[in-house]
Each structure stands twice: as structure tokens, then as C-alpha cells.
């Protein structure tokens, strides 16, 4: 509820070639966002700004609206027919419903969901799928892109000899990393990760976290996680949600050491509800 966030050491001077709204200080902004599924309110009057080139963690107990918030950014929420969205969602200053072309928006906003879905095609085609749809057909460029995405998702070593294997035949953890590689394949401006590590072993998770820190210089990363410690390790800013409301947001270190709300403190210390 307290916003805007003071952006420390953020390079706001070099604007990226932005979307419809041009360059603004926050990359994603929610203005009085309310989402209802039928009669159930999932998000209630959320005002939040996500700064550029940072890792922004969203934490909170189950049913607090974390995933719904994420789905609003690239309008994945549209797939749920009962969802009603009101308020404004701004990406690069442009309203996602009024100013953005939805396909362009989704190319700019990469999304990884907790349930991994390998597409029923080869591993190579899984990663090359989105670039091809966006018009990239040069085989050499595709090869390089597929390799770099798979390397970043820590999957290259396991699949480099069998890129023709069906994506649906990979193990759960491998499919999850495959979806990460797929999300990276369009070099998105914003990368949304929803519980990206639940099926991945701790060692690989750590290595992916290192890569996320590296990617931060190129993209804004929004991370929904149930692992409070993962948020603490990775994120520059953390927002705490409860029951569809934004309880508190701030620089991660401050939120974890001097939370302003009692609810936040209890959740972080693990004696929530």
C-alpha cells in the first residue's frame, strides 16, 4: 500500500525502446487492480509498481492472489473465462488491455508456470517454437538461440545429444526447465516465474538463481515463490500479499529485517495462521 518504492542504484537513464507508453520509471504498474473469479475476489484494489531491471519477488500464503497478479501482466488471465479484471495494468506505461497488442505483449513478457507443459514436439522445436512464430527462420540463428536458452535453463547438458526427443517425454523437472528455456527464447523484457523451482533439485535451482541474477541486467524478473528464503536470496524488492490484498512492499532486506506490518513479520518467521 506504500508506493512508490525508492529505486536504489537503478539505471533509469537509459530508456529502452518502450511499448506504447514510452519510457517510464516503473516497468510494470498496477493501478487499483481488482480481479474476480465469479463471485470470489482474487485481487482487491492492488496498487503496485515493479521497477526495471530488478528481481521482484511476490510472496504470500495460498489463495493470496500471487499467481493471479502474474497472469495479469501478460493477460494470461484471459484464458479463465470467469475472470473479471478492473483497474489498470500498465506495462512500459501502456495499458495492456487498451494500448498493447496482446501477441506483442506476450512476446515481451515471458511466463513460466508451476505445472510444466512440454509441447508435443521435439525439444529443439519446443524452444524454437516462439521465435519461429515471431518470424525467425534462419537455421543457424535458431540453433544458436536454442543452445543459449537451454544452457541458461540448465538443461543443455542433459538434452544436447537428443534434441529430437519429444518434449512431453522429459521428466517433470526437465520439462520445467524446458518451459523456462521456452520463455527465454523470445528474449523477453519481463520474465514472470511462478514457482519455477518446485520440481527442480536444489543444486540446479541454485545455478538457475545465479543465472537469474545475471539476466537481471537485461530484463525485469517477477518471481512468485513459496520459498521465503528464495525471495530473500534473489529479490531486490519483495511484496507480501495476503487474501488478495497487498500487505507490504519494499526492498527485500528491509522487508525481511524490519517489516512494517505484523502480518508480514509473522509470515516471514513462519508462524502465520
Amino acid at each position, binding site marked *: 500500500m506504500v508506493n512508490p518504492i525508492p529505486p536504489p542504484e537503478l539505471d533509469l537513464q537509459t530508456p529502452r525502446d518502450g511499448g506504447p507508453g514510452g519510457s517510464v520509471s516503473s516497468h510494470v504498474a498496477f493501478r487499483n487492480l481488482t480481479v474476480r473469479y465469479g463471485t470470489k475476489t482474487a485481487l482487491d484494489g492492488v496498487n503496485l509498481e515493479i521497477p526495471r531491471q530488478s528481481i521482484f519477488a511476490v510472496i504470500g500464503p495460498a489463495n493470496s492472489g500471487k499467481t493471479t497478479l502474474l497472469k495479469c501482466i501478460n493477460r494470461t488471465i484471459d484464458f479463465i473465462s470467469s475472470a473479471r479484471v478492473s483497474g489498470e495494468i500498465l506495462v512500459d506505461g501502456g495499458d495492456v488491455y487498451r494500448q498493447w497488442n496482446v501477441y506483442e505483449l506476450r512476446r515481451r513478457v515471458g511466463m513460466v508456470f508451476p505445472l510444466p507443459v512440454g509441447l508435443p514436439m521435439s525439444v529443439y522445436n519446443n524452444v524454437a517454437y516462439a521465435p519461429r512464430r515471431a518470424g525467425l527462420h534462419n537455421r543457424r540463428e535458431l540453433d544458436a538461440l536454442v543452445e543459449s536458452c537451454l544452457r541458461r535453463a540448465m538443461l543443455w547438458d542433459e538434452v544436447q545429444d537428443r534434441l529430437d526427443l519429444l518434449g512431453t517425454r522429459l521428466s517433470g523437472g526437465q520439462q520445467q526447465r524446458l518451459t523456462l528455456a521456452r520463455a527465454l527464447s*523470445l528474449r523477453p523484457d519481463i520474465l514472470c516465474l511462478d514457482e519455477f523451482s518446485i520440481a527442480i533439485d536444489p543444486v540446479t535451482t541454485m545455478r538457475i538463481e545465479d543465472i537469474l541474477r545475471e539476466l537481471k541486467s537485461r530484463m525485469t524478473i517477477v518471481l512468485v515463490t513459496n520459498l521465503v528464503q528464495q525471495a530473500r536470496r534473489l529479490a531486490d524488492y519483495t511484496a507480501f500479499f495476503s487474501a488478495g490484498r497487498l500487505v507490504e512492499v519494499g526492498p527485500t532486506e528491509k522487508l525481511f529485517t524490519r517489516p512494517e506490518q505484523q502480518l508480514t513479520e509473522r509470515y516471514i518467521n513462519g508462524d502465520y495462521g
Partner: protein
Amino acid sequence: MRDDVPNNTPPKYLLAAETAEGAVITLGSADSWEELLDLLAGQPENDGVPPMAYRLIRTAETEAAVKKKPRREYFANFRGAGGAGREDDGTESAPWWGLDHAAANLAARRFDDLPPLAVREWIRIRHKEPFTPGALERRKRIKEAVAEYVFLAMTAALVIPIVAILAYLVVKAWPALSFSFIFQNSEDSQAGGIWAPLVGTFFLVWISLIISAPIGVLAGVYLNEYARDNWFTRLINLAVVNLAGVPSIVHALFGVGAFVLAAGMGQSLLAASCTVAIMTLPVIIASTREALAAVPMAFREACWNLGATRWQTIRTLVLPNSISGILTGVILQVSRAAGETAPILFTGAALFTSFPYHLDQPFMALSMHLYAICTQLQGVSDSVQYGTAVVLIGLVLAVNGLSIGLRVYLRSRKKW
């Protein structure tokens, strides 16, 4: 040596056997627990009729104690009296859990919690199958068997008539079946020669499919992939389902009204094909939708998530994974179009006409020809009638077989 067995004087253990008839025979005595177990392990196995059970008894009294009821009884089980077992495939397996095993386990104090045997206490070692079915288990087995046989009987009730009908037809038709019967024309329909109606059926099927397959498949794609779930879509779906169930004679009447009369086609190949197309359309739409719906929603959402448009998703993901199912549905309609008589009866089929066919002229079709030679024309030999039926059924079966083959191929290639 089992130290914790009290060493009363005189220490005496007995080994007794219970036979199947209920008699109890003393097999031997021992002065120590260890000796007793040796005695047990040394009992001949598979020697005649094995005893039902053995008893290990400690008694300070005489052998008469064997016949008395024990004050307390413990049980140890062993499976079978045989040494080596025989597996189903005939190979010898490792020795079973037999008497020597029982003895070894008793010696190794598997009966850890067992206090030392007091006077007139027994350990009874008896045969026990590893799993003895109880009342519940027996009921389950009976129900399982009943269910299986009922389903088998129903399948037989389905298959036997089909085989019988086919066999009857082929036997009856045998004298007429020949190369010239199928590939030549007859002048008077009396002596066989069904080339003209066969060709007519091919034309009918192809023209109707050229009309109905694109419309049906594309409409199915629209209804499943694009249409929002609102009252209008639901109305269309309801109409499709109901149209699929309308009797073909009703389609025929519609065809007479719409194509023969209103559209001015007259009784012609085109009017008949249009009527058959209208008849097959709803089923093609329904089977297309079914094939498309079999592609999980999660795949589509993953593609949309990557910025793919609906058409890109359909072209690259949905259609490649459902095309076999769609084709199967279309092919099944080929056999239906070939077999139906009612829709072409008033719209274009003729009892007798001559080659070549024209779109605006009546034509001959196999199903109509069969109807004609069986009911309208006098003096056609039985074998010609049956021969026509066999060719028609063979055509339908061949097309259905193609569709089944496609389905098998589809399953073998399933990607998730």
C-alpha cells in the same frame, strides 16, 4: 542352545505330529531345545501324506500329555511340506519355507517375545498357504468372473451375428462373384454386371465429401477453437447434435425441397450429392470437434503464452495432433454415404440409366441398385442380388478398415 528355556529335571521335549485325520502321533523326544529343533528339521518331507501340523511340546509328564489340550499354544507357520518348489515355467526354484526353515527360525529365536515353554505349552507349526481367501475375497473373485463372462457373452452376441451374416451373404453370392460381375455392365440388370452403379456410388461419395468435408471440418475448427461459450454457440451445438440424429429420409425430403425443386437441380447427381453432404455434415462437425478437443488445453495455453496467435496455434499444434482423428471421422462418413439409400431415392438415383454420368442427370448407385433388383425387377437371380450386397458391404468394410488402420496409427504416434 536356548539358554532361557529352564532346565528342569528331567528336561524333556516331545515332537508330535497331527495327521489329516486328526490323530496325534509322537515322532520323537529330545533332551534339549536344540535337539528338538534338529529332530523337527530332520523330518522327512513329502514322504507319503505329510502331517497337517507339528507340535513342539515341553512336558514333565508322560507322552499322554500329547493328547491333552495345551494350557497355552503358539503358532508358527510354514508353507508347504515340499523341499524345492516348481515354478509355473517348470524350473526348480529355491527351497520353500519348509520345516528346516521353521526350525532354523525357531533356533534363531524368531519367537523373541515368546517366554520359555512351560509345562504343557505347545508351539504348533502348521501348513499355511501364504494367502487363504476369506469370504470377502471369494465373493470378489466370483463377481470378477461373472463380470468378465457377461462382457464376453455380449461381445460374442455382437460378433457372431456379423460373422454369420457375412458368411451367409458370401456363400449365397459365390456363384455370381467374378471379375466381370464387378467391372462390366449388363444390358438388362438381369445377369449382373454392377460397374455402372459402383461408379455412381464413387461419384456420389466423392462429390458429397468435396462439399461436406471442408465445410464440416472448418466449422468444427471454428466451433471448438474460436467460438466463445455463449447461447448462440450452444444453440449451434444443439442443432449439430440433433441434425446428426435426424433420420436420413427426412434429409431426403429436405433435399427434394431444397435442391431438386427450389434450386432447380432436378433429379440429378448433384442434387443427390448435396443431400448426402447435408446428411453427413453434422457428424463430420461432431467428430472434428471431438478430435480437436482431445488435444489438451494446456498445450494451447502454452503457445498463446508465447505470443502465438490462435491460427498459428491451430496450424502448428492443434491440427498436426488431431488430423488423424479428423480424417477418421471423415472416412467413416464415406461408408455412410455409400450405404444410404433414402437420401438418394427421390433426389437423383435412377433404376437404370446409361454412362456417362452428368452432374445434372440422374445416376445409378449401388445401394439403389440393390433395392431395385431385389424389389422392383422380376427374375433377377438370387446370387446376383447377394453378390451386389457383398460388394456393397465389402466397400463399406474396406473404408471402415482404412479408418481403423488410421486410428491404430494415430495411437502409436501419440505424443503425450
